[in-house]
């Protein structure tokens, strides 16, 4: 899990940990807001007369206070320049600037996928997610990702239908294929 990196890279790599900690501030304030919401929201929980010594409110209040206190400590640390250390990984390059554009493209592919599942069918929505993500992450030529995604999606759909007896949404196109539409042969 995440822990302190052994040492800063000797090469002066551009790091987004320089400059003002806007992102960190937003996340810490978000945690603070969640804590406050939890405390305030606890008092909106109805307490039935059957409740014993400790009702349904006390624990949520404690959780909210923990969040407020912990977020406060993070904010206090930030004010004194204690920044969070981004988690490393085999495919994470610690020496580059954050590329939020790529991340946004991947999220967009994901959103398109979940919006399309029940419209065009799971396999085609899978092609959108796989192809979009692969392209955003640098796969070229552009058509190879969606093609692989479609093959993968069709295989999964077939395995689910034939092997597990579970029907993923076939969509209008595959609805004509007996195995995939969940209605059995000729249905």
């Amino acid at each position, binding site marked *: 899990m995440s822990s302190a990196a052994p040492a800063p*890279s000797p090469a002066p790599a551009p790091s987004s940990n320089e400059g003002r900690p806007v992102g960190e501030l937003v996340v*810490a304030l978000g945690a603070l807001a*969640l804590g406050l919401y*939890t405390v305030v929201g606890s008092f909106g929980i109805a307490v*039935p007369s059957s409740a014993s010594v400790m009702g349904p409110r006390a624990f949520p209040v404690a959780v909210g206070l923990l969040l407020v206190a912990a977020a406060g400590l993070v904010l206090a640390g930030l004010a004194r320049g204690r920044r969070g250390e*981004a*988690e490393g990984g085999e495919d*994470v390059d610690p020496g580059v600037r954050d*590329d939020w554009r790529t991340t946004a493209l991947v999220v967009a592919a994901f959103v398109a996928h979940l919006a399309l599942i029940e419209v065009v069918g799971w396999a085609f929505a899978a092609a959108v997610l796989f192809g979009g993500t692969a392209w955003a992450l640098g796969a070229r030529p552009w058509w190879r990702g969606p093609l692989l995604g479609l093959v993968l999606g069709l295989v999964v759909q077939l395995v689910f239908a034939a092997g597990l007896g579970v029907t993923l949404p076939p969509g209008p196109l595959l609805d004509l294929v007996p195995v995939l539409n969940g209605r059995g042969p000729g249905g």
Partner: protein
Amino acid sequence: MAPVGDVGALLDGFAAAAQPQFLLYALIGVFLGTAVGVLPGIGPAMAIALLLPLTYTLEPQAALIVFAGIYYGGMYGGSTTSILLNTPGESASIITALEGNRMARAGRGAAALATAAIGSFVAGTIATVLLTLLAPTVARLAVRLGPADYFALIVVAFVTVGALLGSSVPRGLVSLGAGLFLGLVGTDTLTGQQRFTLGLPSFADGIDVVIVAVGLFAVGEALHTATRMRHGPVRVIPVTGSWRTWLTGDDLRRSWRPWLRGAAIGFPIGSIPAGGADVATFLSYSAERRLSRRKEEFGHGAIEGVAGPEAANNAAAAGVLVPLLTLGLPTTATAAVILVAFQAYGIQPGPQLFGSEGPLVWALIASLYIGNVMLLVLNLPLIGLWVKVLQIPRHYLYAGILLFAALGSYALNFLVADVVVLLAIGALGLLMRRYGYPVAPLVVALILGPMAEEQLRRELAISQGDLTSLVTSPFAAAAYLLLVGLVVASLWLRRRQRRAEAELAALLDEAPRPVPTS
């Protein structure tokens, strides 16, 4: 010591697990686990979370045997990745793997892989024996624990996982609090009141732990990698020679003591609720370095620095199963996901488990032994295959991870709403990783939070609101004392770790650093 009856039960377990179809399931488990574990960026927790939906059609016994295989296999696969991939990560758990990476670059990759594999087997088997001996006894004692005792144990787990393990105490606590909050969402079990559901019907039964686990580990990791992806070709260090001659006599002489020491360090640390494999590998590494007569080799590929920590890692993984199976307490993120897998089959780990589901548990433990042997036999000869897996282009790898994550959460209930929640949790995971919040406390708190509240309320109902009853039970009092001891010990450890890391960083700076290819 285990009574004779346990030996008989274990033998029955072996008889069950040795049936051809269960052997096949164990083989599938270790194979899938290793394959997924070899993939960079996928740890054992994510491997189990991603493969969870595939097992829904299996019967419980078969599914648990598959999971046992995935659990051990994922660990094996992970060490292969860190030894052969030319991009050492930055997190502390990989410090030890760096040693193997240095060996590989010096042309001794085969020896590093072999000592890791055999060490994992030796330590894994020793630890599984200890698990076999210890677990039934712990379960028998645990039957007598009251709600206050359980609450104390959970508090110990919260503090160690949330505050003591990460690099930043406040961030660990925020992660813990966020997990506790997500655990609150749903219907209160004691009074039937809805809490924090925002009036949405899909939250009335709570947020599915599988979705949270897959979202944090798979989607969060993929999005985090997308923000800072390492581009360019994947560089795998070539392994030369036949696997039969990988470990020379000298290597073996230098390895066997670290293997045993690793097992001795790993198992106890894994089995107390004090946080899993990272601590164990680090302790083993620094112990080997202190005991070695060739200190100058550390940081440049000392075989002891691979053998010890890899053994400790596997022994800790088996140790984690002790509190999980006997108390129902997951103390690592991976254990939390395994608990979810149990619950998916309506099985609640805890003191009753060895009584109510005896044959099932013993078959599971037997399959841990069998899986360990299979891994040893499979992995060295199959190294060529794992090298190919390592070379999967990263854009397709992460596209595939996202696709199977989306599939897994959709296949739970066939609701698009679940996939929306998955993406939201994934975005949370991205922010947490990016800004240094550990994700393990969130998953552990999500599972233990509702248990903690239930035990607390039960205790206060029994004692009619007397708060002192929480600490007056001898067991609970001992647990809180242990906690104080752990806090003191971790402060000391943290100082040591910082010093060790500084020394290691100095060593690494002398050696040539990998050149970024972008």
